[in-house]
C-alpha cells in the first residue's frame, strides 16, 4: 500500500457550531453544521463532494439531510469511535480506485442531550451474555481490562500512570477555549474523584458531551489548488479482533499492535519521527494500553513512558493537545475529534496550545470494547 502514501490529503476540518452541552440539536443537525464548516474551511463547495462516509447512522440519512445527491461512493462503516480513523483509509482507497474525488466524512452525536436513543438489539451476543450481568456502558468493560493490566504489571505503578494521563490531558484542555473542562486538576483531585467502577475513578473516564465534526479528503491534484496547505495522508491501517469485552483475546493489547506498525511502515516514518500523538482516550487506560500496543514502548512499560508528565505541555512526548476525550469533548464516538486536532496542529492553527512547527502526527482511534483500531499517519510539507 506504500504507493498510496501521500496520494490524498485532508483539506478541511471543523466542529459543529457549538460543542459541549448543546440542547435542541439533533445528531443530523450536528453532522450538517460540521459539514458546512469543513467545506468552508477547505475553500470548497457542496457540489464538489462526490463521496460520503459516516458512522452511527446511515449515509442515506446524512446525505439526504444535507441534500448531497452527487454521490459516487458511500460508506457507513461503524466499528465504534475508531471508525473516523478507518474512514480516512477508506476514502484513500476509494479515491485511488477512481470511485470519487472528494470525500466528506461527518460525525454528529448528542451524547449528553439527545432526545431519543436507540435500544439494544436483543439478538446480539452482548444482550444474552454480558448486559444481563450489568456489563452496560464502557466504564465497566474497560475497567475489567484495566484490572487485568494491574494484575500483570502492578497496581501502584498502573494507578500512577492513569493519574499522569488524566492530569496531563487536563493541562492541555486548559489551553483549548473549546474544552468542556475549565478547571485545573491536581493529582489529589484525580485520586479523590469518586469511584465509577473500580479500578476507575470518575477522572479515568471520558466526558459525555454533544458535538459534531467533519473533515474532507481529496486527491493530490485538487488538494494542491486549495487555499490551505494540504495535510497528507502517509499511512493507514485498520483492524479488530472481537466485539464484546469477554471475547477480547488479550485485555492488555489492542489491535493497534498490528495497525500501528503497519501504518508507520506505509508512511516510511519511525516512532521517533512522530511529532504529535493523538491517542483515543475514552479512558486513561485506553491510552496506556494503546501506547504499548502501538509500539511506543514495550508491554508493561507504559507507566514509565508517561511518567513525570511527559505527555503534558512542555513534555517531550506531546499527546492529545486538544484536551482529549477526557477533558475537551467526547460525544460517544470521539475519533472524529482526533483528526480535527491533528490537522490543526500541523497547520499551526491551535493558538495557545500550538506545538512548535510539528510536521508529523500519528492518530490512533479505538472503538467498541477495545475492539477496533485505526491508525493514521499524517504530515505537512
Amino acid at each position, binding site marked *: 500500500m506504500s504507493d498510496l502514501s501521500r496520494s490524498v490529503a485532508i483539506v478541511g476540518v471543523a466542529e459543529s457550531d457549538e460543542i459541549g452541552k448543546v440542547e435542541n440539536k439533533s445528531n443530523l443537525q450536528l453532522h450538517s453544521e460540521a459539514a458546512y464548516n469543513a467545506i468552508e474551511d477547505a475553500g470548497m463547495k457542496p457540489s464538489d463532494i462526490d463521496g460520503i462516509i459516516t458512522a452511527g447512522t446511515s449515509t442515506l440519512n446524512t446525505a439526504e439531510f444535507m441534500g448531497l445527491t452527487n454521490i459516487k461512493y458511500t460508506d457507513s462503516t461503524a466499528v465504534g469511535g475508531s471508525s473516523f480513523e478507518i474512514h480516512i483509509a477508506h476514502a484513500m482507497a476509494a479515491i485511488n480506485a477512481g470511485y470519487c474525488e472528494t470525500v466528506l466524512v461527518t460525525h454528529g452525536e448528542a451524547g449528553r442531550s439527545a432526545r431519543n436513543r436507540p435500544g439494544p438489539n436483543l439478538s446480539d451476543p452482548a444482550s444474552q451474555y454480558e448486559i*444481563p*450481568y*450489568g456489563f*452496560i456502558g464502557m*466504564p465497566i468493560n474497560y475497567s475489567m481490562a484495566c484490572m487485568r493490566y494491574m494484575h500483570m504489571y502492578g497496581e501502584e505503578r498502573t494507578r500512577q500512570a492513569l493519574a499522569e494521563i488524566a492530569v496531563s490531558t487536563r493541562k492541555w484542555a486548559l489551553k483549548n477555549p473549546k474544552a468542556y473542562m475549565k478547571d485545573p486538576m491536581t493529582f489529589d483531585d484525580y485520586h479523590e474523584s469518586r469511584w465509577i467502577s473500580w479500578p476507575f475513578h470518575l477522572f479515568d473516564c471520558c466526558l459525555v458531551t454533544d458535538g459534531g465534526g467533519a473533515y474532507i479528503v481529496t486527491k493530490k491534484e485538487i488538494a494542491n489548488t486549495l487555499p490551505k496547505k494540504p495535510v497528507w495522508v502517509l499511512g493507514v491501517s485498520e483492524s479488530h479482533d472481537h466485539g464484546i*469485552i*469477554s471475547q477480547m483475546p488479550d485485555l492488555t493489547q489492542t489491535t493497534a499492535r498490528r495497525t500501528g506498525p503497519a501504518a508507520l511502515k506505509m508512511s516510511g516514518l519511525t516512532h521517533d519521527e512522530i511529532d504529535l500523538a493523538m491517542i483515543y482516550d475514552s479512558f486513561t487506560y485506553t491510552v496506556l494500553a494503546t501506547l504499548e500496543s502501538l509500539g511506543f514502548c514495550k508491554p508493561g512499560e507504559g507507566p514509565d513512558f508517561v511518567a513525570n508528565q511527559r505527555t503534558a505541555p512542555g513534555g517531550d512526548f506531546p499527546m492529545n493537545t486538544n484536551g482529549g476525550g477526557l477533558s475537551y469533548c467526547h460525544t460517544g464516538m470521539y475519533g472524529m475529534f482526533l483528526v480535527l486536532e491533528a490537522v490543526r496542529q500541523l497547520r499551526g492553527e491551535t493558538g495557545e496550545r500550538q506545538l512548535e512547527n510539528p510536521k508529523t502526527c500519528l492518530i490512533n482511534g479505538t472503538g467498541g470494547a477495545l475492539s477496533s483500531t485505526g491508525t493514521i499517519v499524517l504530515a505537512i510539507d
Partner: protein
Amino acid sequence: MSNDYKKPIPSPQGESDFYWEKAKAEELWLRECPVNGPYFYPRDISPGAMRKDTKWIKASGKATLFTFSIVERAPHPGFMDDVPFVTAIVQLEEGPLMPTNIIIDDPTPEKLQIGMPLEVVFEHINEKIALPKFKPV
C-alpha cells in the same frame, strides 16, 4: 424469583436455546470444537476453526477469577439496589472465559483476588431464565 425483576433479561436465540434450558436446570453447558476445544459463548459453528462438527459438553461449574470490576455507579435503573456489585470475567475449568457476576457481600478489592477459585450458582430471574453466576469456594 420475583415478577419485579427490573434488569435486562437475556433473549435466547436458536443456537442458544439449549444453553438457557440447561441453565434453568442449574447446569452449565459449553460447545466444544474438535480442533480448539471448548468455547464460550455457544454457537453451532466454532469460532476460528469454523467447524460444524461441534458438540455440547457439560461444564464442571468450577472456575477461577480472571478479572473484575466493582461497580459503584449503577449503569441501568435495574441495578440501583445492587451497587456496589461485581462484574467479572471468569476462566472456566474447561478453559473458556465467561462474563458473569461474583456473588459476594460488601465487595472490596481485597476480597477479590485474581486467580481465586469459584463455583457456579444459578439465579432464577423468571419462569424461563436462570443466570449462571459465581461465588468464592
